Structures are given as C-alpha cells and as structure tokens.
C-alpha cells in the first residue's frame, strides 16, 4: 500500500504496509535504515533510569517458541515489556504441543486472545509464513528451520554500524556451518542490502557457494573487517551424515583462535557459543569480541521491530529525548 499520510506541512510516504517480518528478502534498504534508526532512538531511551516507554501500552505480544532459546526469547520479551506491551511466552515443551496438537491448532488457540504480534520460532522452514497465513496477527519470524532469522541479521547490522560507524564496504567473513544456518542466510541478504560484502569460509561440505563467494581456506579471513563465527549446529545435522570427520578436526582447521585474528578485526557470534569448538574462549572474551554488544543490540532492534510493525508514525518523542 502506498497511501500518503499528511504529517506536518507536507505529504510523506509512510513505511509501506508490512504486517510481518518473515524474511530479510521482504525488506529493502530503506526499511533497514528506518529500523536501525528507530533502534538507535530506543538505545538512547535505554540509557535512562526509567527504561520503560508507554508506546505499546495495551498491546499483546506473544512469543511462541518451538525450539529452545535463551537470548532470542528473553530479548523479545524484554523488548515488548520496555514498550509497555503485555507479553505471553509459550514454550512447546509443557504445552499442548506435547499432546500432539498441530501448529495450526496451537496458533489458532493463541490467536483467540487477539495478540497484536506473534513472535514464532520453529524447527521447520516455512513455519513463520504458515502462522502469518493462519492468523490475523503481525508475525515476527524468530527463526524457522534453516530458513531465516531476520531480527538476528538486523541486530548484527546494528552492532557492526556501532562498532565501525558505517556498513557500506564492510568485509564480513562468515565462518563455519553455513549449510545449517538460518543466521547466515539472513545475514548474507542483509549485508548485501546495505552495501557490505560477505564471503563464506568453512568445510566444503558445510558451505553454500550459491549464497556468497566461498572458500575452505581459513587464511582468507585475514581480509575481513568482521569475522562472524557460526555455531556448529549439531542438532540440525542429520544423524550419521558426517559433514566433518570430527569436531577436533573442525576446530584444528576452522576454529577461531587468537592467532587467526589480526589486530583491528572484530569477532561476532550469534550464540550460543561452543567455546573450544568453533571459537576459542580467549577470542570470545577478548577486546575484539562484539558478542555482548550483539545481545545488547538485540534488545533495541527487537523494540524497533515491534514498534515498526504496530505503528506507522515517527519514533515517539519520549524515546528520542536525550538525557543530559
């Protein structure tokens, strides 16, 4: 929809209607810039003593998680609460899912409470678009199978911009298990949209050359501004598929250790980390690491996403006021 709204003394185009955030592929560069700018306003508000904003008072945000998650589910929950929305988090374990209820029935049951937003994480690709079709709520994809994890990519962009001051022209090496990674799929698309460069490094059996330039040579990461380390996703690998001969061999060849990182490079990881497997603990805790910044960015970026889905207007004044 491209209807124009009059704001102030001239017509401006509001963000085009986006009821859902299912995939980075649904966004354009303007969308990303708007979301990052909104996140930045919220970051300023988070520096204040009272962190809660009244913006989404009376709205209901439901987090429906069919896979285990610490940072994403807590991040969405805190984000919604900081915007004064009511929240409800449903985990598959201990719910009717254990009794064999289908995704449609679970979601329709929850939809009966008229949530404004459903945040869904699910082990199967297509689950978020399924929920979007099945309900009238705005849907945020918090990870569906190996498909997409768009808010992770957005928070990664936010983190990189904060660290480097720009995104354009940034070189990002994505290292490890790309094949099973929804994070990598979203991130590659997002980096391309903002004019950054991504390339993939890892075992040939876990690379996806059609996504981005790929190499198995770990020395290639020397060329990168950001070394983005992926988790070895043992739970998503088919039993017995033997993508790498052993974790020990993986670590020896592709593990990110202090001697593989050069000064000035920054290291990121979407978590949870397998310390000593894909990333050495000394790197994870070093000056080069942006891992904690990523978690902090996650909160404000998810606030921005919830805000953007539920409102079309400018960022509220109370969020932009800087504290003296």
């Amino acid at each position, binding site marked *: 929809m491209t209807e124009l709204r009059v704001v102030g003394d001239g017509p401006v185009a509001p963000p085009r209607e986006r009821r859902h955030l299912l995939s980075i592929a649904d966004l354009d560069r303007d969308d990303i810039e708007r979301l990052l700018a909104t996140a930045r306003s919220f970051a300023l508000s988070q520096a204040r003593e009272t962190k809660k904003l009244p913006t989404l008072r009376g709205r209901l945000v439901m987090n429906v998680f069919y896979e285990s998650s610490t940072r994403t589910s807590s991040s969405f929950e805190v984000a919604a609460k900081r915007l004064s929305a009511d929240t409800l988090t449903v985990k598959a374990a201990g719910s009717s899912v254990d009794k064999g209820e289908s995704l449609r029935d679970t979601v329709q049951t929850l939809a009966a409470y008229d949530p404004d937003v459903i945040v869904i994480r699910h082990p199967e690709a297509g689950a978020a678009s*399924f929920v979007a079709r099945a309900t009238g709520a705005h849907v945020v994809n918090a990870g569906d199978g*190996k498909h997409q994890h768009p808010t992770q990519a957005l928070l990664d962009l936010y983190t990189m911009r904060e660290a480097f001051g720009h995104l354009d022209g940034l070189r990002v090496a994505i290292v490890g298990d790309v094949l099973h990674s929804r994070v990598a799929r979203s991130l590659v698309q997002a980096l391309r949209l903002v004019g950054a460069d991504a390339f993939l490094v890892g075992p040939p059996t876990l690379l*996806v050359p059609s*996504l981005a330039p790929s190499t198995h040579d770990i020395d290639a990461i020397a060329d990168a501004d950001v070394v983005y380390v992926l988790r070895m996703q043992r739970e998503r690998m*088919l039993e017995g*598929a033997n993508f790498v001969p052993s974790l020990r061999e993986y670590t020896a060849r592709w593990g990110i250790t202090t001697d593989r990182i050069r000064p000035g490079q920054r290291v990121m990881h979407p978590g949870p980390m397998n310390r000593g497997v894909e990333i050495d603990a000394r790197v994870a805790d070093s000056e080069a690491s942006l891992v904690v910044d990523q978690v902090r960015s996650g909160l404000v970026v998810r606030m921005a996403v919830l805000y953007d889905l539920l409102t079309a207007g400018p960022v509220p004044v109370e969020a932009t006021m800087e504290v003296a």
Partner: protein
Amino acid sequence: MLAGRVGSDDLVVRGARVLDPVEGVDAVLDVRVDGGTITGLAPQVDANGHRVVDGEGFVLAPAFIDPHVHLRTPGREDEETIATGTAAAAAGGYCAILAMPNTEPVVDTSEVLGALRARAATEAAVPVGFLAAITKGQTGAELTEMGALADAGAAGFTDDGRPVVAAGVMRRALQYNAVTGRTLAVHCEEPTLTRGGHAHAGHVSAELGLGGWPSLGESLMVARDLELAADTGQPVHLMHLSARESVEHLQRAHHRGVRASGEVTPHHLCLTDEAVRSLDPNVKMNPPLRAEDDRTALVDAVRDGTIAAIATDHAPHAPEEKDVPFEAAPFGVTGLETAFAALYSYLVVPGVLRLETLLERLSAGPASIFGLDRPRVAVGARANLVLIDLDGRWRVKSTTFKSRSANSWLLGKRLHAKVRLTVAAGRVVHEA
C-alpha cells in the same frame, strides 16, 4: 488388465473438430456412438434417434489415459477412494487410469489385487488398471509373485514412492518380468543423496535453507536402471522424470536401442523451483520442482517424443497433512482434474507445444507404454472420447473437485480449456 464397467451408451456429437493425431484425423465431423462403439464418423451422420450433443466450437479427441495415479485405497480412503478418484479422472477427460500399489496394505498379493479389481468393477467411473509391487511390502528385498499377480490382472509392476535400492534386486526383477509381459515402472531415487531433501538442490533451496533433493539423486538411478535394462534386454519405464540429466540418459539409451520409456508430470512441465519461494506445501512434490533448464529439457523431450507419456502422479493428501509448514508437509499434489487445462494454458496457449502433441502424450503414449488399447476416434473403436471447450475459462477452486482431496498447485488459478464430456469404455462418465 483394466477393471471397470463397460458401457453401451448411444450418442451423437455434432459438429466438433475431431482431432485424433495418431489416426490422422483433423476435421469438423459428426460422431455417432451405438451401444458404446463408434459407428459413424462423417460430416453429417444420422442421429438414429440418439441423444445429440452439440460439439460446435469444441474439440473431440481420444480420451486420456493417466499411467500414474494414487487412489489411496486401501488404507487412506479419507484421501481418495476408487469412486472419487475415478470421478476426478472422468472430469479431467480420462477414460482409464493406472493406480499405484503403495497403499496400506501394499498391493503385493493376488488377494489384495483381486479385491481392488472387484471393487473397481462396480465402483469405478472409468476403468482402472492396478499396478502391483515389484518387491514384497515395497521394501526392496524380495520379489513379489509377479507371475501370479500378472495372472490375477496386474497392469504392471512398480515400487513407486520408493526406489528399488539394490541393483541386484532390480536386475532380477527386470529378468524375471519377462514372464509377465507387463511393464516394469521405476521410481528413480538414490536415497543417500535425497535424504532430508525438501526441494531441488539449487540456488532457491540454498537461499531458503531447505534440504536439497539434487538432480543427481534421480539421474544416477535413471542411468543405473537404463544400464540394467540394456544388460537384461528387458524394457523399463521411468516414472515422473524431473531432471535434464535424466532426459539425456534416456535419449542416449534410445540411441543405443535400449527399450525404455519415460513419463513426466504437468507440474514439472509448467513450474520451476522458483514456485517454492512461496513455501506453499502444494508445490512440494517428489521428485521436486527443478530449474528452468530442467523444465525446458522436459518440454523438449515431450515435443520430440523422448518422453512419450504425461502422467499426473495424482497424489491426494488430507487437509491436515498439507496444512503445516513447508518442511513438515508430505510430497505430492493432485492433478487429474487440472492436467489438460494446465498443460493447455501453460504450454499450448503460449505456443510452446502443439495441441496435437499434447493430445498424443496424454493418450496414445501412455497406452502404448503399458500395452493398453489406444483410445481412437475411428469407426469400429470402443468409444473413449473427450469433448473439450478450448475457450472455456475457469478458476480452480478447492470446493469443486470431484477428488476427495484438494492439494492442487493450481488453487485460485484461472485456466483455459474445460472438459465438457468424457466417454470411457462406451459410457458417458462426465458432462459439464
């Protein structure tokens, strides 16, 4: 080999464009059917007091034969029955169909086969040939009693839904099949390459993060089965081909004189894996939709006759099975009621395929592969006819299917060409 009712209807179709490419007929003619047999074919025939159907502006052609249908009976009558599946076939212009044996239980004994044939004799709208399994329980281990099954009326043999994984078993099946004289049809899939696959292994599945089902998963098995056919001197029929490499293997085999045939589905001829971006479970099939390069190779193979048959692989699924995220959904789509209209709309209207070729691949091609009587518009032939309004536009709706299932990739699409009348084995089985 076919089980079903034989009719003795009387009928005259006036003024249709009679088009039987194999018989070399293309003219506006009247056709008279007496007691189920075509007795008149002339610019003007005497109605003999029969009911007259106005065929003006329509095409009258040999009715279609679908060599690849899942009737889901026995076992999943909630998805399809002999009655609903054959009613769907009649509505799609088919005068005969072949049913796959991957049911519950599997059609691997004369008893199961005999029971199905007995039911079809009374319930089927159009005659049905039942294929029996190659191996007991379709486990790929031990051969079924192929001789006894052929005697009991098996229309052919297949483990469809699964490959015969062991080359030694497949070789033995081809050798032994010489005693049945029936067609041995194979589902070509190398399971160690397709495990965990949900969509064609290409840039779309890479981008979407869907497990890849590579072309090689099919073509490697196609190559193996063609080599086994060459080695044993026995013919083989390759079902639902999807990959360019498979077509190339089949072409090379033909040049070497290997007796081999192939079939392709409407969805592989009309769609590519770009459709999978929708994550709509109704574009999830096995084998999967492939790239544009594969699709054009399949269309070329249909045009030049390398692939002689179009088969729907009609695979009904209960709504709750498909009403799930893409990755959780089973493979398969329905096709009987939309095949001709889809192919006409996607390939004939844009000028990619000639109507004559399409009609031949839907009828004479499959008949010849499975040794069935070829439907034809000729005096003395049993009436197996389809009357088509090529200009009739219609929208595919989930509520109007005769099939018990609605998992069609065409839902909501507007198509050209409506089947107005189907005559199967001398009986009017569909009118619209």
